[in-house]
């Protein structure tokens, strides 16, 4: 693991260090940019945009060659990518607005047709004398081996600009993402904010092309926000967590791929992000699967506890093994099933509370209060002691329960 240690401390060589820094910055910016896309429920628009970059890249190459350049100028290629991504995005919007087709059909049509056309252009380039070694196929899956200082600088500067714009525009973008109608009523220019949101995503797609490729950049835009959503219900923390998840995936993925041979960087970054997602899906507090299972178990235990106590109070036999186990564990019954003093007291109280609830629901018309009756909520949590005393006067004097 010496190689890995070197890689995560950026000591594994110039290229590896560049790739690691670039991937971290890209992951951070992509996670933040993807957050609003996800909240706007348009995550897969990034899919259309990423695939739509291909014909632009190929056209840019052809144009540059036609003007006598060498065709591999990075700025030119990225400009082409951005232009055709914009055209693709505009077409998705146009199809959704002007026809009866839904957004998913528009996204699928644009991504497959643009990509298909891009492949046609790629085969044209391959047939050219100068296109043989163009290496444009690298934009599909990314290539890090030949990463230069200028690529890293591009990612750093581009990513920083994207993050700064997100911080600046987070209020209007939040409004538009959650409730476009309300945002419009407040005077927020919804159309322009949407355009800014998409523009940021497009910028990330374009600067991420050379590093992870156009298929996997989608993952960096979608997985970190979905992961962050498990940990918070607020936008600002979600932005930070999504950025952190994306950055961590970029950092770990690049370091791992630098230290182990034949481990491609782009897929590695995506798989680390997917791993973080899986952990969050399973173990996040409140929204995670484990938390949901535990909450269910707690609820189940409360129901059995309550029903068990009521059965004790009514001197009914209890057969359910789970109920018996819960009562026994709480010391309400002895191992042979006979109620303890504590159990009898608790049983009497729950029967009394049940009676109190009955009266309360009969006399109180306020459903905000009585609506909270679910057989489990203690009555003290809903009514004041005065109100409970009032209920008690209607119930009458205490009566012995359970034939005791």
């Amino acid at each position: 693991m010496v190689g890995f240690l070197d890689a995560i401390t950026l000591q594994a060589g110039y290229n590896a260090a560049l790739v690691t820094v670039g991937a971290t910055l890209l992951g951070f910016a992509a996670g933040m940019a993807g957050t609003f896309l996800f909240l706007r429920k348009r995550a897969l628009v990034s899919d259309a945009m990423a695939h739509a970059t291909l014909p632009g890249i190929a056209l840019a190459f052809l144009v540059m060659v036609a003007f006598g350049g060498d065709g591999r100028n990075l700025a030119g290629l990225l400009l082409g990518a951005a232009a055709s991504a914009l055209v693709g995005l505009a077409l998705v919007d146009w199809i959704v607005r002007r026809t009866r087709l839904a957004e998913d059909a528009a996204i699928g049509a644009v991504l497959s047709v643009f990509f298909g056309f891009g492949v046609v252009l790629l085969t044209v380039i391959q047939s050219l004398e100068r296109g043989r070694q163009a290496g444009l196929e690298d934009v599909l899956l990314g290539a890090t081996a030949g990463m230069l200082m200028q690529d890293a600088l591009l990612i750093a500067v581009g990513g920083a600009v994207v993050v700064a714009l997100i911080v600046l525009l987070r209020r209007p973008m939040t409004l538009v993402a959650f409730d476009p109608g309300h945002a419009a009523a407040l005077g927020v220019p919804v159309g322009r904010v949407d355009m800014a949101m998409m523009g940021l995503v497009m910028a990330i797609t374009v600067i991420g092309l050379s590093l992870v490729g156009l298929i996997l950049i989608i993952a960096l835009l979608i997985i970190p926000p979905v992961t962050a959503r498990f940990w918070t219900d607020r936008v600002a923390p979600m932005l930070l967590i999504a950025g952190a998840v994306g950055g961590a995936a970029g950092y770990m993925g690049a370091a791992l791929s630098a230290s182990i041979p034949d481990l491609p960087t782009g897929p590695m970054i995506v798989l680390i992000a997917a791993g973080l997602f899986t952990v969050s899906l399973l173990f996040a507090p409140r929204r995670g699967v484990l938390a949901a299972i535990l909450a269910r178990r707690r609820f189940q235990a409360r129901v059995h506890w309550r029903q068990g106590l009521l059965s004790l109070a009514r001197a009914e036999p209890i057969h359910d093994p789970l109920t018996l186990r819960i009562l026994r564990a709480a010391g309400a019954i002895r191992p042979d099933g006979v109620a303890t003093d504590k159990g009898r007291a608790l049983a009497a109280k729950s029967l009394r509370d049940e009676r109190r609830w009955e009266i309360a629901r009969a006399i109180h018309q306020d459903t905000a209060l009585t609506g909270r009756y679910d057989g489990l909520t203690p009555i003290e949590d809903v009514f004041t002691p005065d109100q409970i005393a009032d209920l008690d006067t209607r119930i009458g004097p205490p009566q012995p329960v359970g034939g005791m």
Partner: protein
Amino acid sequence: MGASFVQFSLTPMLIGVLAAIACALPGNFLILRRQALIGDAISHVVLPGIVVAFLVTGTVATMPMLMGAGAAALVAVVLIEAIRRLGRIEPGAAMGVVFTALFAGGVLLLEQSDTSRVHLDVDHALMGNLETLIWLRASGWDSVIDPVALSHLPPELPRIAGVAALMAVLTVIFWRPLKLASFDEGFARAMGLPVSAIGLGLVIAAAVAAVAAFDAVGSIIVIAMFICPPATARLMTDRLTTQVWLSVAIAALAAILGYVLAGYGPIWLGFDSAVSAAGMIATVAGLMLGMACLWGGARGRVGVAPGA
């Protein structure tokens, strides 16, 4: 239209047409159910499926590959549904998470394993090899009835023909439940139809079509044909029967036009080499959809004048 046409163009063209039809048939219902991108997701996860099948069996035989791809498609669908329900994540994002992660896994496995000696690479998976599915034993149109020559047809042709026929039969058999469940799920449920089983069955059928077509023509055509011909047809008519027939015709036309343009277009323009047939078929399908968006007779939403 002589011997060389039968040898070099007839079979790829037929395979392209049948693949397009096999995908367009389930695509009609996917579009109506707003699940168009299932095709996209499936065609991405086919790659890891094929790689895993190769690693397990060690061969590039077709059956294990198809089964691996089918299994991957099923795993993807189950994962998407699980993430959507367990994580309460909207379906689009759940799909994005699953197919990108599985695709990344596929690429990683491909790079890690020793697959350099076999023809298995990402470009191939994306773009297919339609142009190479030629029928060398044919010597002219007579070969079409010559059993010896017929036995040397590229194996992709009978396979995709079988799948296209299967899709047609399934569409006819399940016509009523599919139609009801696609247009009005609540009503279909009230009628006692097993709505979720119909949905799952449709996705599995789509996966079968995608995997069989993918084998012959690559994933670009698969995605394009799931979506473009049905969407084009949807903009031209309000009747489902007409829509399905139209989508089949459009898919076939796009496949033929695309193949011809890819093979002969560059030559007409003075270049000497052909361009990607799969890409050109997708492009033609897209142009047809574009025309339908502009002029299709039923392009507007109900109650909204077209172009309003």
